[in-house]
């Protein structure tokens, strides 16, 4: 039983990173209408930046903030220089994001190298609660994710900006006529999603080592999470991330670890075919072209 609880806590911390990238994708794909295949690379860049700054002696939590800002700036640049021009041709934007992911991956290899990087546990505490050992950093990762999810959820569902954003998704022309600067919202969502990827990357490297190729693995889980939950649906992404994280964590502990990656892929293909709008509903994303 103790082992089960520990597996559960570990899975929760892994699920946190998955949820962060899933929320980023669900917002960018579902609300801004951009399929960004380089989102996983954004996360990887955030992790690498954290590794570099922590290696230079910076406090982890300060580095986390900087990593988030750096990747947010990267997202801003990508949206302004690239995706802005393909808003009417989502397919071209998708292909371009593949090119961007290849560039980022190899730029990181060029700047650092292709080997895996890790940092020492920034907190280094282990709490024992009722006979269960909990690594403090993992609990902190979960806590940070909970805060971010709460901010995002209420920002989208309750705030004025969230309402305007949802209005622009459901009817872009009318929203524009009502004076909503739709383009600026698209940029804003893109930056916010990228920022979450940067923070996710920083949290990820505090849990396990990452390589320049981590992004292309995690992107698939991010798409799986956002599609399970329904695009644009923050709550759905949380549920999706939890399900996927728990299945992964528990299958690594009990099932067939060599098939771990296959589960999320199979789940995703089935959902895409049977319920393209996601299990919990959401927008269908940009109109299929």
């Amino acid at each position: 039983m103790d082992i089960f609880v520990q597996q559960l806590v570990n899975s929760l911390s892994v699920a946190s990173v998955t949820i962060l990238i899933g929320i980023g994708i669900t917002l960018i794909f579902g609300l801004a209408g951009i399929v960004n295949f380089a989102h996983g690379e954004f996360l990887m860049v955030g992790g690498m930046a954290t590794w570099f700054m922590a290696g230079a002696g910076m406090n982890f939590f300060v580095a986390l903030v900087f990593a988030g800002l750096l990747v947010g700036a990267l997202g801003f640049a990508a949206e302004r220089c690239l995706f802005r021009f393909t808003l009417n041709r989502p397919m071209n934007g998708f292909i371009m994001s593949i090119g961007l992911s290849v560039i980022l991956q190899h730029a990181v290899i060029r700047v650092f190298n292709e080997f895996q990087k890790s940092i020492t546990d920034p907190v280094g505490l282990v709490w024992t609660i009722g006979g269960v050992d909990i690594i403090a950093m993992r609990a902190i990762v979960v806590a940070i994710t909970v805060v971010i999810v709460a901010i995002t959820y209420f920002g989208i569902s309750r705030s004025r900006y969230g309402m305007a954003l949802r209005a622009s998704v459901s009817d872009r022309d009318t929203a524009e006529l009502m004076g909503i600067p739709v383009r600026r919202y698209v940029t804003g969502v893109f930056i916010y999603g990228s920022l979450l990827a940067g923070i996710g990357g920083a949290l990820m490297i505090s849990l396990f080592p990452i390589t320049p190729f981590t992004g292309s693995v995690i992107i698939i889980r991010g798409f799986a999470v956002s599609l399970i939950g329904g695009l644009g649906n923050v709550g759905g992404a949380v549920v999706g991330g939890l399900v996927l994280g728990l299945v992964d964590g528990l299958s690594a502990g009990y099932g067939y670890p060599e098939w771990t990656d296959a589960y999320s892929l199979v789940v995703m293909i089935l959902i895409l075919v049977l319920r393209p709008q996601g299990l919990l509903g959401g927008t269908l994303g940009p109109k299929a072209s």
Partner: protein
Amino acid sequence: MPMTDNSAGKIGAAPEGARARDRLALLTADNAAVPLPASVQAITAILLAALLIALPWLGLGYRFLSIAITTLYTAIGLYGLGLQFGQAGIMSVGHAALMGVGAYASAILSVQLDLGFWTSLPFAMALSAIVGGVIGLPTLRVGGQHYIIITFCFCALFVIVLTNGGTFTGSATGLDVGSVTPLPGINFDKLSNNYYLVLAALFLALAATHLIGISRYGRTLRAIRENEQLARSVGINVDLHKLGVLMVSGLFAGLAGVLQLYYLRHISPTLFGAFPSLYLALMVMLGGARYLYGPLIGAVIVNFLPEVLNLDPVDSRIAYGVCLLLVILLLPGGVGAGIKNIYCAIAGGSVTQGGGANGRA
């Protein structure tokens, strides 16, 4: 695909005093729908064929010829992708996995049943076509981007299955095969003969692509690409056509995969994973999926660029990425479109105008 062929009447018709901006627009337009004169098409085809046939005799060395073989079998796979994307508008980023189905089918037949190149080829191609059709089933339900994600998942899943397949698929180390069964008087162990084998297959792929492009079938596919609902409403069986083109694309991929297998003599799962698939998508976009020679141009650029510029693999991949971004932003029709437009600008008014059906550069 909203890349409409809206400039059908403009090609080669630049007035004398056209402003620079108009000229630029002419050069970057996507004119796939405007046919070149038959004589130009024939001359291009003959020159290209002559060049490709003469290549081993130019004394360019073993390494050059090896890269040429890689380029050609990649191009065969790309012609399948070019058909499904360029004609029917269905993109895939899991195409290397389809090549892998062909390659692994042939390798497993060779290991388990001792079948050679020629006997296993039809089975491998048929299996690739069937798998292509099965993966294509979701296209009947979901649109563009969702389908791309499905193909990417399939590709990742394929690699996991191969890696966990035990001795049957050779796990992570892969499988080995012997050489191509010699035909009377032709031994394919010699590199130049292997080159001609792949070249012959490429000519088949080119001819098939051209014939599909000018046929009624090709026109129907383009109608579906431009407006699926309209095509459906005039009585076209959209589902059947979509599955059909994906199966044809699978046939090409299977052929390419078997050629790749017997050129390398050894295959492993990483050859058919996510990265090779992404590079295939990149090449077809780079070259221009709607142009007859587009996929070939894309394969040549991607395979020869690092060699010509003497780049190491990391730099060359950054270069591909940058090229892809530039092509999408500035030249959505691909390099094929650019070459055709430059030709039209030089040839000026001698190019016939009209809305003919076959878009060939």
